[in-house]
C-alpha cells in the first residue's frame, strides 16, 4: 500500500512512568489529553465572523483536524460555545440559555470585536460583549478575525482543556463565577 501511514502524527503520551508492559500516569493528565482532542464546538454565528467561521470549517483550514469533528448545532454534548458576531440584547438570554444547556466541562470563545466588546456598535440594542451574559475563556480579536485566528483561539482552549484540574469546576471560585452570572 502507500507509505502515507508515516505521515500520521500521534499525540505524545503525557508524562508518566513506563516499564515493561505498563505505563502509569495521573488520571487528570489522561482525562485532559482526551478532552483536548475531542472538543466539540457549538457555533453560535450571527454575522461576518460567522462567515469567517464557515471558511474555518472548510477544507482549506479544516477545523476538524483538532478533533472538533462536525460542529454541533445543539448544546447536547457540545463543550465549546463559539459565539461569533454581533449579539443584540434581545439575543442575550438565548446565548445564556444555550450555555446553560451545555454540560460541564464547557468553554466559551468570543470571536471578533462584537462578541468580545460590542465592537463598533455602541448602540442601545447591542450587547457590549457576551461576557455580560456568560463567562468567556478565550477572546479572539479581529473584525472579523481570519480563520487562522479562530484556529488559534481553539488551540488556546485546547491548552486550557489539557491543563485544567479535574476539581476546578467544583471549586468555590468557579461556583462564585457562575453565581455572579446568575447561572444555577
Amino acid at each position, binding site marked *: 500500500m502507500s507509505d502515507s501511514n508515516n505521515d500520521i502524527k500521534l499525540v505524545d503520551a503525557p508524562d508518566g512512568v513506563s516499564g515493561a508492559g505498563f505505563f502509569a500516569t495521573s488520571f487528570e493528565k489522561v482525562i485532559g489529553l482526551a478532552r483536548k482532542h475531542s472538543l466539540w464546538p457549538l457555533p453560535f454565528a450571527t454575522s461576518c465572523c460567522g462567515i469567517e467561521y464557515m471558511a474555518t470549517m472548510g477544507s482549506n483550514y479544516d477545523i476538524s483536524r483538532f478533533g472538533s469533528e462536525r460542529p454541533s448545532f445543539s448544546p447536547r454534548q457540545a463543550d465549546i460555545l463559539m459565539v461569533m458576531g454581533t449579539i443584540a440584547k434581545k439575543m442575550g438570554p438565548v446565548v445564556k440559555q444555550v450555555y446553560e444547556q451545555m454540560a460541564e466541562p464547557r468553554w466559551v470563545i468570543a470571536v471578533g470585536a462584537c462578541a468580545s*466588546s460590542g465592537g463598533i456598535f*455602541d448602540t*442601545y*440594542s447591542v450587547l457590549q460583549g457576551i461576557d455580560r451574559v456568560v463567562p468567556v475563556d478565550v477572546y479572539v480579536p479581529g473584525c472579523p478575525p481570519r480563520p487562522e485566528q479562530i484556529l488559534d483561539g481553539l488551540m488556546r482552549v485546547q491548552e486550557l482543556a489539557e491543563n485544567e484540574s479535574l476539581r476546578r469546576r467544583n471549586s468555590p471560585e468557579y461556583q462564585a463565577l457562575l453565581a455572579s452570572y446568575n447561572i444555577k
Partner: protein
Amino acid sequence: MELTNENVLGKIISKFGEENIWDAFSPDGIMTITTNRASIIDLIQYLYDDEELQIRFLTTMCGIHYPDHKGKELCVMYQLHSLRHNYRIRIKVFMPADDAVMPTLTNLYATSNWMERETFDFYGVKFVGHPNLTRILNIEEMEYHPMLKQYPLEDQTREDKIDTYFGR
C-alpha cells in the same frame, strides 16, 4: 367638494375652533396642523365620520423628540389618508417631556395598537387606554427609551468607546 388644504382647514377650524387648531402649514404639499391632547381623538374621529372628507386610513403615527423646545419636547405625529379623495393630512400634538401622556387611538384604528406600542418603546409616551402597552421591539429590562436624543455611553469608564471614536 374638492378637497384642498384651505377647504379642509376651514372645515376643521369651524368645527373645533381656532384655539384647538393652529400652526397650519404645508411643508411638502401635505397640510400639517397642530392640535392639543384634548381634541386629537375627537378630531381624528371627525375626519373619519365626515361624509365629505372620508379620511379613513391611518398611514402612520410616531413620536418625535425635540430636546431644545422648552415645554414641548415630545411630539406625536399622525398621518392620515383619504383613499376616496387621495388626500393626505398630518396632525401633530406637542407635550412636555415630563408629561408624556396621550389618549389611545386603538378604539378607532386597530392598526395604531402596534404603532403606539412602538412609540412607547422608543419615546416613552404613555398611551392611556392602550390594551397592552409594553415594549415591542426592545428587551423588556431596558431602562431607557432609545430614540430620545440622549446618547450616553453604557459604561462611562470605557476608553475604547469614547465619543471621538464615534464621530460625536
